[in-house]
C-alpha cells in the first residue's frame, strides 16, 4: 500500500478492510450444500464465524473465498444437507 514512509499516515491506522485476505486457502475440508434438501432455515448463515455464508435468492450460498472450513455449518444443519468434502 505504501512505497515510502511519506505515503504513510502518522500512526498505525487502518485504511482498508481485510477482504484481500482470502482465508479460503486455509481450508482442508470444504462444505458443500445440497440445495434440494435445504429447508432455508439459515442456521448455517447464523453460525458462520467468518460471515462467509451469504443469502442469495433465498438460498444459503457459501463464499469459498473466505470459508475457513471449520465445519460448524455442517455440524449445525438440522437437515444434514451440508457435507464436508476433502479439498
Amino acid at each position, binding site marked *: 500500500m*505504501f512505497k*515510502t*514512509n511519506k505515503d*504513510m*499516515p*502518522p*500512526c*498505525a*491506522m*487502518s485504511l482498508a478492510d481485510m477482504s484481500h485476505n482470502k482465508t479460503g486457502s486455509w481450508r482442508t475440508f470444504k462444505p458443500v450444500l445440497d440445495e434440494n434438501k435445504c429447508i432455508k432455515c439459515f442456521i448455517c448463515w447464523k453460525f458462520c464465524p467468518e460471515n462467509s455464508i451469504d443469502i442469495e435468492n433465498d438460498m444459503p450460498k457459501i463464499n469459498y473465498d473466505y470459508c475457513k472450513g471449520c465445519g460448524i455449518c455442517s455440524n449445525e444443519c438440522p437437515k444434514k444437507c451440508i457435507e464436508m468434502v476433502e479439498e
Partner: protein
Amino acid sequence: MKKVVTGNYAASYGAKVSRAEVVAAYPITPQTQIVEKIASFVANNEMDAEYIKVESEHSAMAACVGASAAGCRAYTATSAQGLALMHEMLHWAANARLPVVMANVNRAMGPPWTVWTDQNDSLSQRDTGWLQFYCENSQEVFDTTIQAYKICEKIGLPGMLVLDAFILSHTSEPVEIYDQDRIDKFLPKYNPRYKLEPSETHAFGGLTTPEWYYELRYKIQSAMDEGLKEIESVGKDFGKMFGRKYGLIEKYRCDDIDTLLVMSGSTASTGKEVIDRLRDNGERIGLARMRVFRPFPKQEMRKLAEDVNKIIVIDRNISFGNEGIFFSELKSALYNENTDIPVYGFIAGLGGRDITMKDIEGMIKKADGKPKDIIWWGLK
C-alpha cells in the same frame, strides 16, 4: 489580570484557559491541588470539561489517550510514583501520536518514601516520545501549558511540563492570566484530521509487522525535529501576543563569557542570582537554563559551547551507573562537532535537599582542572 497563585494552581489555570475538554487524574502529593482546583472549576461550571475521577494514574493516562483519540483536548497531572505507574500508557500516547498534555510535579522516587523534589521521575520517561518542558516559575507553568497544546497538536506528540515539588508547586507568585479571547485566538479548538469517528471507521494501533513499524518510529523522530522549530516559533508568537517570549534554552547573561553554567527548573532562579553576583565581580560567566529536554536542543547547545571554554552542569537527578542526565546529554551533543572543551558534571539536591547560592558558587569554584565524570556536591 494578575493573580497570586501557586505553581500548582498555575497549572490548573493553564488547563482551564487551554479549554481542556477531558481531564482524567488521580491525586498524589504534591500534585493534588492541581486536580482539586480543576474539580472545583468543573463543579462551578467555570470549565466545560468532563473530569473522570479515575482509580489510578494508569487509568488516568489510558482515559486521556482514549479521549484524545476521539478528538478531544485531554489533560492530566501527576508526580513520581504516579508517573511511573503511567509508564506503559506514556508510550501509548506518543506512539498513537496523541497530543495529551500533562503537568508532572517533580518528586523524588521511593523508597524511601519522600515527597520532595528531584528530576528522576520525569527523566526516567525520557524515551517515551513525550516532549518535556522544565519550568522555572509559576508564570512559565501557566504559559507553557497553553504553548504545549499548540506545539503538541501541531506535531502530533504528547507533552509534559515539569515543575519542582513545593519550591514551585506550593509557592505563591503573581501570575498574569491573559484574556480568554486572546488565548482562544492563540490556541484554537483541537480538531485532528484523524480520530475515532463512525463515519471514517479507522482502526488505530493494530498489529504492525517489521515491514512498517520502523517507518512509524522514524516519523516520531521527525515530529520531534519539527518540534524543535515549533517550540521556538510558538514561543516567539506567544511573546508577540502576550509579552513573554520563550524558546528552547533561556540564555541568561550569556554575552561575552568564558564559562557556561547549565541548570534547569526552579533552581535556575538561584543560579541567576549567583550569575549576577559573579558578573558584578567581573567574572565572565552566564547561565543556560534548559527549558526543553525533549526534543533535546542540540544545535542551540553546540552554538553556546562554541564561545566558551568551560561548561558546568548541575543535575538534580542521576542515571544510576552513569552520571547526571543533562550532563550526559549535553556532552553527547558536543562530541560529533569536535567541541573539545571541559564539561563538569555535578549531582546536587536529590530528594529535595536545598541548592543554595553558596552551593552553586562552590560548584563553580570546584570546576577546575581535569573534569571528572561525576561530582557529588555536598555529600555527607
